[in-house]
């Protein structure tokens, strides 16, 4: 399987045309059949894609231009008001929305550095040759196959401030044993970041491992000959060799953390106060519990634009600098 290729794929037109098949019209495919055959193969996908991806993507904008209450028959057109309300501190959406954006931003800032660096260290460890390497790789990856519901319910119990086993073990080691992991700040953020690292470390580690395998061994041998230290090899061989993978990991991890929902829904229930109510929690609560979908759609597009800008900035900061 082509799992270790890190060269970017050509964006399109990857299939080579059939030899000699270019000229005659009805026979342009390397697989024969009528000219409609490709569309028949694509039809089931395209029907689902148009119905549940392409059309909703645009329909959502339409919703956001209306006062769209799911439970009311009238859904009056309001233009851009749902967007301008988000900038108007006297509107009822203003405070919850920006509180959610702030919580999302805090979570991104505290979780991403760990979610990017710890898996890299783990991947470097696992990249060494030792018996049982595949076994350990599978162990560290295991939590990732669990759903956020399992992870959230588990850690809510383990992190319980009064009878949780995390405090129990800290106490057994003679450390403070009454930290309010889920009910006070900054502990709630620390807990959510820790749980997310525990849950997803294997994902990024596996992506780094594939990237590490593509760095030519000769580069390390050359560094050894030059008497490079372990740190120098990391700095001057590993990191530059991983650059494309690193860009991918940083961008996808920022987006994943910005999408955080289940951990705070289950572990802190948005608390203490509403400090861990993320933007996604606000959007789903407003749109899918209170059914005020116009406002919620407007929020989701604003959040999406923010995330797109952040992804572009990350890409720009991490790009190969041409000297």
């Amino acid at each position, binding site marked *: 399987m082509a799992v270790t290729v890190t060269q970017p794929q050509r964006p399109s037109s990857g299939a080579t045309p059939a030899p000699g098949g270019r000229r005659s019209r009805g026979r342009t495919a390397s697989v024969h*059949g009528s000219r409609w055959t490709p569309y028949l193969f694509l039809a089931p996908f*395209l029907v*689902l894609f148009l119905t549940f991806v392409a059309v909703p993507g645009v329909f959502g904008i339409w919703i956001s231009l209306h006062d769209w209450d799911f439970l009311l028959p009238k859904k009056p057109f309001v233009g851009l008001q749902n967007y301008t309300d988000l900038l108007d501190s006297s509107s009822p959406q203003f405070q919850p929305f920006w509180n959610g954006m702030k919580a999302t931003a805090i979570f991104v800032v505290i979780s991403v550095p760990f979610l990017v660096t710890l898996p890299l260290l783990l991947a470097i460890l696992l990249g060494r040759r*030792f018996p049982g390497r595949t076994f350990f790789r599978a*162990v560290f990856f*295991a939590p990732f196959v669990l*759903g956020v*519901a399992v992870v959230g319910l588990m850690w809510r119990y383990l992190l319980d401030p009064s009878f949780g086993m995390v405090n129990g073990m800290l106490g057994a080691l003679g450390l403070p044993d009454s930290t309010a992991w889920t009910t006070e700040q900054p502990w709630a953020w620390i807990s959510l970041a820790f749980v997310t690292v525990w849950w997803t470390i294997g994902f990024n580690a596996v992506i780094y491992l594939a990237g590490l395998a593509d760095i030519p061994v000769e580069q390390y041998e050359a560094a050894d000959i030059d008497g490079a230290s372990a740190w120098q090899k990391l700095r001057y061989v590993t990191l530059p060799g991983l650059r494309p993978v690193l860009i991918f990991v940083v961008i996808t991890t920022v987006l994943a953390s910005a999408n955080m929902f289940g951990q705070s829904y289950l572990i802190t229930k948005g608390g203490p106060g509403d400090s861990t109510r993320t933007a996604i929690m606000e959007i*789903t609560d407003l749109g899918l519990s209170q059914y005020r979908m116009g406002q919620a*759609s407007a929020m989701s597009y604003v959040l999406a634009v923010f995330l797109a800008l952040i992804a572009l900035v990350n890409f720009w900061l991490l790009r190969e600098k041409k000297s």
Partner: protein
Amino acid sequence: MKRRNGPLFWVGMTVLSLIFIGPLLLVLLTAFKSQSESRTVPPTYFPSQPSLRAFDVLFFQDAASPVLRWFLNSMAAATMHAALVLVVCSLAGYALARMEFRFKNAIFTAIILTLFVPGFIFLMPNFLLLDKLGWLDQIWALVVPGAAGAFGVFFMRQFFQGLPKEFEESARLDGAGPFRTWWSIVLPNARPALVTLGVLSYLANWNDFIWPIYVLFSPERLTLPAGLSRLQGAYTIDYPVVMAGAMLAAIPVLALYVFVQRYVIEGVASSGVKG
């Protein structure tokens, strides 16, 4: 790197393994405790009087929480979803890998672009769409909408492009049509990719949380993750019961993972190769 791995390395590996597996074991042990023992300070690790009470409550005592039904709902939804993804994405992926047709690049670009659109954009419009289709509170709400994913079709296309063309050409010379060729020549050779995509789709659907909690309403229609989060809503949480439920959701995917971990990990690794 040729350095020897000293005892420190192995101590580190052991500690790390405990951090990743230990919490699961502690939770599994909790499922066998009494409700009062689950709340003792300091906590016990091994149940002093192991009992199956939590599983009894989970399965038989609470009519408002039909946990077995949730389990079967999750199974059915994930199985149908994975099957649908495989059919739809391997058909489309094959066309994109091997056929030439008008608008091919436009279609492929449009699909790939959606990889960059965050999923929450689709929550509200798809909810309304399901309402129009009469699929709210139905299993179809979980099976169908996510099946046309860009990742699946991209993954299958990449795999098909890597297959040698000789078999397909000899099938054509033998008079097999394109559909026949796809079904009896191409798909059997694509088994590793199909297993990988099938397992990843199954896991994603089994674990999905945000969508089922909003599109399912009736207690008997819930999936396991959605149902378990409602169990937690009670005033005093019966933790052994909730932990038993969490293990019920975890053990099938962990078991599946043990058998196909190579496919899962390689599938995930391949998602990073787009660079």
